[in-house]
């Protein structure tokens, strides 16, 4: 079904982890791309940065843990996550408090970074 071409895809995660299920939908799409051997990179931006916070205790709001899914992503060859530095700054979040291996992207780097991908999946 899926053969040959390997697309360079950017998954843009802009929603908070438990504000609806769009965050979950985005991560499931990432795992699917990985299973089908695509070159997928993840960027957290805007409200999406909250997905990277520790101690989510999502069971208390009857939700599956986004943090757990992020923890499993190295097993799908998604080893690290890009984070928009400005989104962190605006929300007064220190990058050091984030879980997972994160790579910060400054405002000046962002356009070139986005341009380097063939396709954007925006969640």
């Amino acid at each position, binding site marked *: 079904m899926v053969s040959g071409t390997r697309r360079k895809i950017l998954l843009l995660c802009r929603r908070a982890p438990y504000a609806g299920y769009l965050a979950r*939908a985005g991560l499931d799409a990432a795992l699917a791309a990985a299973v089908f051997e695509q070159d997928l990179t993840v960027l957290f931006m805007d409200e999406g940065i909250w997905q990277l916070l520790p101690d989510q205790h999502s069971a208390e709001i009857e939700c599956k843990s986004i943090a757990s899914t992020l923890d499993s992503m190295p097993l799908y060859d998604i080893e690290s996550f890009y984070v928009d530095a400005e989104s962190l700054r605006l929300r007064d979040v220190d990058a050091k408090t984030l879980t997972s291996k994160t790579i910060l992207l400054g405002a000046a780097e962002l356009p070139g970074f986005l341009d380097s991908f063939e396709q954007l999946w925006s969640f």
Partner: protein
Amino acid sequence: MKISLLVLASPYASQSADTAWHYAQAAAHAGHELYRVFFYHEAVYHGSRLSVPAQDEIDRVQRWAELAERSGAELVLCVASALKRGILDDTEANRYERGAHSIHPAFVIAGLGQLVDASVHSDRLLTFGG
């Protein structure tokens, strides 16, 4: 160009879903090939055959069906999203013993592999409702 769409927003809850349709319509009209429209998350409601819009409202389910007919695009609903929202085809209705199917005949149910396939086989893939 070969174009596919990823639609995330539900038909009666967001403008994005309408924008997706208008974009698809314009792309087809301009001579591009519409390969696949992948409805994921809340957008699976576009595939309900039980939707009854008011007489003076646009039938947002039907117009996708008509666009697919004209353009040859495949309309796919993501299986996990569709199942939990009660959009089932015959196979799924039997598998889970739900007694009735609810999918509009112009749509098919498939997995996220079809989103990846659309990505691989299209020159452009656009997200609406993200």
